[in-house]
């Protein structure tokens, strides 16, 4: 796999604040990589550094094999799509798409050809003579993507492009972006705080916190084998259950309830305070629970009907546990049910460091 974007030992300081610290990242050609994290984690900052809109304090950036650390954004072979679309308001869509090319003195036929191709891919041909104020949010975002498209570049950068849209539009455009990637096969680096966008769009996700990449892996791995407590809690809705307990040998004692961790793929040998993470959808009830290696009777406290399924709240060893049940199953507060799960599918974390054991 050839590397499209390579970031080596990148650091960025704002005064005394270390926003990004010694970051390394390799993005393969044609890969869709998502930078995911809460506000302030540095994902947008990293993207702006890659774009050349921010000066780095240390480190290097390579795009398509070339060292672009000191290059202007226009020379880096990138196109960028912004959260607020940033369309030039006084120009028509057509002018918005072509302005940069005309400034670069591209021949008219070439400009027209590129605009036509972009408009066709994004289905915005009928909008070419309209001004941004006359367009809907979704149309504006397509024009913004078009502006990046006409630049005919290898790498596309997306800075939370769907955050300004309402939920329905967000879903629609998300699919469009995925389709776009499948058609164009360009490298795409995408910043978001929305885990659904990340999970559905990414080839790999880089989850960031405080300027450091916590885990870089494909969505499946991140979901099932999170590398630390932060990642585990960030991905998944409703979030993963965390059961605090004492780890000894191959068993974790959760407030008096021992849970054997046979078949769990331990990466280290550790005893002591630990946290067992179990996803709500991995908890079975009733008949299904009997097939599980670990079972326990528990009383339901709260029932939240979601429509597609139901989320119920109960306690295990005095600690909160949520689980998912099919919508048809009848559940009531106070009802006693048998719940069970396979600890091998869960995640065990060192309670002190938060890292996966």
């Amino acid at each position: 796999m050839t590397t499209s974007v390579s970031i080596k030992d990148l650091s960025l300081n704002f005064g005394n604040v270390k926003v990004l610290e010694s970051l390394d990242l390799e993005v393969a050609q044609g890969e869709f990589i998502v930078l995911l994290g809460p506000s302030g984690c540095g994902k947008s900052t990293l993207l702006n550094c890659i774009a050349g809109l921010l000066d780095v304090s240390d480190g290097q950036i390579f795009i398509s094999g070339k060292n672009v650390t000191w290059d202007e954004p226009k020379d880096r072979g990138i196109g960028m799509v912004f959260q607020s679309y940033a369309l030039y308001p006084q120009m028509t869509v057509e002018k918005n798409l072509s302005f940069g090319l005309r400034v670069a003195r591209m021949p008219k036929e070439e400009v027209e050809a590129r605009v036509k191709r972009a408009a066709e891919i994004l289905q915005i041909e009928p909008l070419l003579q309209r001004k941004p104020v006359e367009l809907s949010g979704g149309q504006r975002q397509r024009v913004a993507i078009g502006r990046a498209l006409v630049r005919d570049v290898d790498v596309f950068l997306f800075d939370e492009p769907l955050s300004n849209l309402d939920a329905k539009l967000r879903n629609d455009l998300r699919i469009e972006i995925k389709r776009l990637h499948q058609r164009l096969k360009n490298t795409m680096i995408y910043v978001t705080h929305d885990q659904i966008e990340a999970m559905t769009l990414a080839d790999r996700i880089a989850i960031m916190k405080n300027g450091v990449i916590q885990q870089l892996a494909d969505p499946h791995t991140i979901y099932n084998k999170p590398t630390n407590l932060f990642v585990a809690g960030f991905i998944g809705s409703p979030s993963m259950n965390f059961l605090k307990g004492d780890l000894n040998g191959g068993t974790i004692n959760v407030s008096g309830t021992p849970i054997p961790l046979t078949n769990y793929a331990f990466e280290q040998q550790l005893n002591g305070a630990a946290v067992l993470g179990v996803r709500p959808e991995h908890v079975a009830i009733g008949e299904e629970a009997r097939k599980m290696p670990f079972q326990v009777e528990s009383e339901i406290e709260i029932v939240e009907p979601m429509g597609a399924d139901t989320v119920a709240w109960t306690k295990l060893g005095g600690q909160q546990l949520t689980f998912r049940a099919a919508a048809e199953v009848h559940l009531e507060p106070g009802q006693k049910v048998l719940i069970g799960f396979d600890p091998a599918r869960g995640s065990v974390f060192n309670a002190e460091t938060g890292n996966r054991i």
Partner: protein
Amino acid sequence: MTQIAEPGERAAPGFAGTAAGRKPRTRRKFNIQSILGTTPMIATAIGVFVICIIFSIIWSFTSSKLFPNFNFVGLSQYERLWRTDRWIISVQNVFVYGVLSMIVGMVFGYLLAVFMDQRIRQEDLFRSIFLYPFAMSLVVTGLVWQWMFDPNLGIQSAVRQLGWTSFEFAPLVKQETALYGLVLGGLWNGVGVTMAIMLAGLRGVDAEIWKAAKVDGIPTWKTYLFIVLPMMKGAIATAFILSATGVVRVFDIVIAMTQGGPGVSTQMPAIYVIQHITDRANVGQGMAAATMMLVPVMVIIGLQYLFQWNAKRKAART
């Protein structure tokens, strides 16, 4: 418990607030305390801005001399007005002064704002320097520049003493150039404000527009000219209206700098009016001139309404 009039409950047509999407406020037809509290406003609006204007217009149709009378003489004051050289020159002067001040002012103000926008060190210091003249009275402004324009002891002589013996810089001495001296003094006083307004407009431009332009490879100066400037219509309009209203009523600086001279080369309509209701004891003429001064105001207000109406039409189309 006091009855709270929930705006939503009252469907009265007077809720411009709700209709326009603004926060609705309580509104009654007859709010005694409020009316009492705003009596000065009522008195001013009606007493001054309506009644006084009406009287000015009425007296412009009379033969009033030292004291106002109601001896109506039709349009004769206006006829005389437009046959008077002094008046016609005043109008020409204010027009030239206005156009020059506003064009130079807006361009210079915009340039200053653009340069100030470049993340300058000591931005605050520069801004203080550009704005402090506005804190000085126009009388002070006029007097200082009059002194600096002095042919024998001012800038002209100082530069000549430095060696450039044919240097000419005494606009107030000659009739053809006196207006330019006035323009310069006025600009010195007011450009800072134009700059402040433009800078505020510049800073209101979304940072992401700048990023997009950078990624597109558009050079900074082109971004300012083709992208940012068209986005600043609001600030430009504000600066324009502010300067325009100041121009029409220009008075203090002329009195201080040139007293209308030399000759009548810097006569202004405002001075014409004041002179005729004081020294020249011709109230009728003065009122006619004053009424003429109302015309550009009506034009500007008309333009503003046209602009707003047009904008509403465009917004309704989308």
